[in-house]
């Protein structure tokens, strides 16, 4: 007899997938922010987020509440992001793109090394931000932690979208990314807009890190490396220049990876990432600009 398909399990797995996708989405949005303005993928984004998470851990350790540390860390990360752009990205603004990519790889080693230097490499943990009690919706038990994670990441992305859509500064930074020369002519300080993008990206990364850490029993300085892989893959799937695409892409990826890992025995946990990447490649071969990306048209 065929086994009855367990809809409860499916719903739970989808929510778990959305929760991990939500955490990746905030980091993916950070990647998109920098890609839109600088034209490169920031390989150090995950390590910057990890560093922010360790700052948050120190604040909590010194007696702050989780949410107090959360807000303060975002502010610190924003300032650090701006500072990093001013210090190491601005000098290579006009250099070949691969040069900028290598600078971000250098930042990757530097930030990781700094974090292991400052905070010794023992594992540590952050308190749970949400109650671990499950709630039951329509007969299916969901964890509040998962739902809260999805909520916070979506709220962060929504705030960012509101900033870009409804403030003058947001408009200026979108203009600077789209057409630097014309923006400069109408008085936008394009270079500072890049720094703003790095600051916002660092802040989004901090959110991602602080949502990743409490879900784990313990974490160390390699916390964000897998997250960066998933965020990169999801952002490319959604179309690397679209905020909405980054969110939808990573959420889809989260659900996909979780369902494949659960229902396809041969794949198991080891091959989840390669299989997910293969699926993405399949999508990209049909839609080379990603799900929501614009096809770059060039005049030759």
């Amino acid at each position, binding site marked *: 007899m065929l086994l009855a398909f367990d809809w409860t399990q499916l719903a739970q797995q989808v929510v778990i997938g959305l929760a991990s996708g939500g955490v990746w989405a905030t980091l993916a949005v950070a990647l998109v922010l920098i890609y839109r303005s600088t034209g490169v993928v920031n390989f150090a984004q995950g390590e910057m987020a990890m560093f922010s998470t360790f700052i948050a851990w120190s604040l909590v350790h010194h007696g702050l509440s989780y949410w107090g540390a959360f807000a303060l860390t975002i502010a610190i990360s924003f300032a650090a992001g701006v500072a990093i752009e001013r210090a190491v990205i601005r000098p290579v603004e006009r250099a*070949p793109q*691969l040069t900028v990519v290598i600078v971000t790889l250098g930042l990757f080693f530097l930030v990781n090394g700094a974090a292991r230097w400052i905070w010794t490499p023992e594992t540590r943990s952050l308190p749970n931000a949400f109650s671990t009690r499950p709630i039951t919706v329509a007969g299916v038990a969901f964890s509040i932690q998962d739902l809260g994670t999805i909520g916070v990441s979506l709220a962060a992305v929504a705030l960012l979208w509101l900033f870009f859509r409804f403030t003058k500064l947001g408009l200026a930074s979108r203009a600077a990314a789209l057409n630097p020369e014309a923006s400069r002519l109408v008085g936008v300080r394009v270079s500072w807009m890049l720094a703003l993008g790095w600051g916002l990206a660092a802040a989004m990364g901090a959110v991602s890190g602080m949502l990743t850490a409490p879900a784990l029993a313990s974490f160390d300085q390699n916390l964000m490396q897998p997250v960066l892989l998933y965020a990169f893959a999801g952002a490319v799937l959604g179309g690397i220049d679209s905020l909405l695409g980054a969110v939808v892409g990573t959420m889809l990826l989260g659900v996909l990876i979780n369902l494949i890992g659960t229902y396809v025995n041969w794949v198991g946990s*080891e091959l989840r990432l390669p299989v997910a990447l293969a699926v993405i490649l399949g999508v990209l071969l049909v839609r080379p600009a990603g799900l929501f990306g614009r096809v770059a048209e060039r005049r030759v």
Partner: protein
Amino acid sequence: MRRRTPGIGLWLVLAAVVLAAYVVAPRFVSDFHSRNLAEAGVFFIAIVGLNLLTGYTGQISLGHGGLMAIGGYTTAALVVHEHWRDVWTIPLAGVAAGLVGFLIGLPALRLSGLYLALATFAFAVAVPSLLKKFSGLTGGSQGLRLLESAPLQVTGLSGTVTVFGHSMTQNHFLYYLTWGIGLLAFVAAWLLVRGRFGRTLRAVRDSEVAAASAGIDLARTKTLAFALSGVYAGVAGSLLAIQSEIVNPLSFTFLLSILILVGTVVGGLGSLPGMVLGAFFVEYLPDISTHFSSAQGVPDFVYGAAIILVMLLLPTGAGGLLRRLARPLTSRLYLRP
């Protein structure tokens, strides 16, 4: 003003100097350091290969560590399962990785820039997991040990190697083997890029549309560049396996792909002589960084800072610097009033 190309005499002198340096270098360094030099040679070969692809053809690859894994495992599997002599597996390792490189080149026809980066990145991430999955051939996460499973096939097991009646230590042999192949690979790359084929590659890099309208077959050129670059990576991976006498999935992580890319850009995209400096940079910088302080994280911190500093000071890599340094010299030599 007429600009002459360097005469054949100058090239011969240069070739003689390089060859002499290659032959006598082990006399000036310890046995241990000639092993380090041999390791740098592996990076050199892989970096020259990636430069053909990224520097000359404009196709980025984050997956060269995966191609090196194909080469390394081809060698290890032939030695362990088929009992081949290790050095004779090198050409086959190159061919195997070249074929895989060709296959990666196929999706590259539709993808460019970032998407190609993702595709090759996916390959680099997938290879270690696949190596663990198919453990019958690859030994799973344990890997394959050349020395334990097939000691007779490992050259230099007894500590000395005799080549052409000339006896030398194993580390010196590895140095001569690696850099000998490295020099051949370098000359092959130089011959390739200076002629018609090199112009085709550069045309594709500079403008695909213009290249296509000039009658260049884009698909053929790109897949060929990937295959060629794969051959270099495969040979490098094979030499890595021979040097370390063991392969396992951890020898070929994503970090290896990153190091090769860093070496290529530091060496200078589109410059072949710069690649030597790129290889030394990648091989020796971690060692140098540990001299500052052995505290946790400090070597990585110094390593990252050095990469950033080099890029800020030399955005076009060592190759760009060499060109600038050589300009006053060459213009005086070749310009006639």
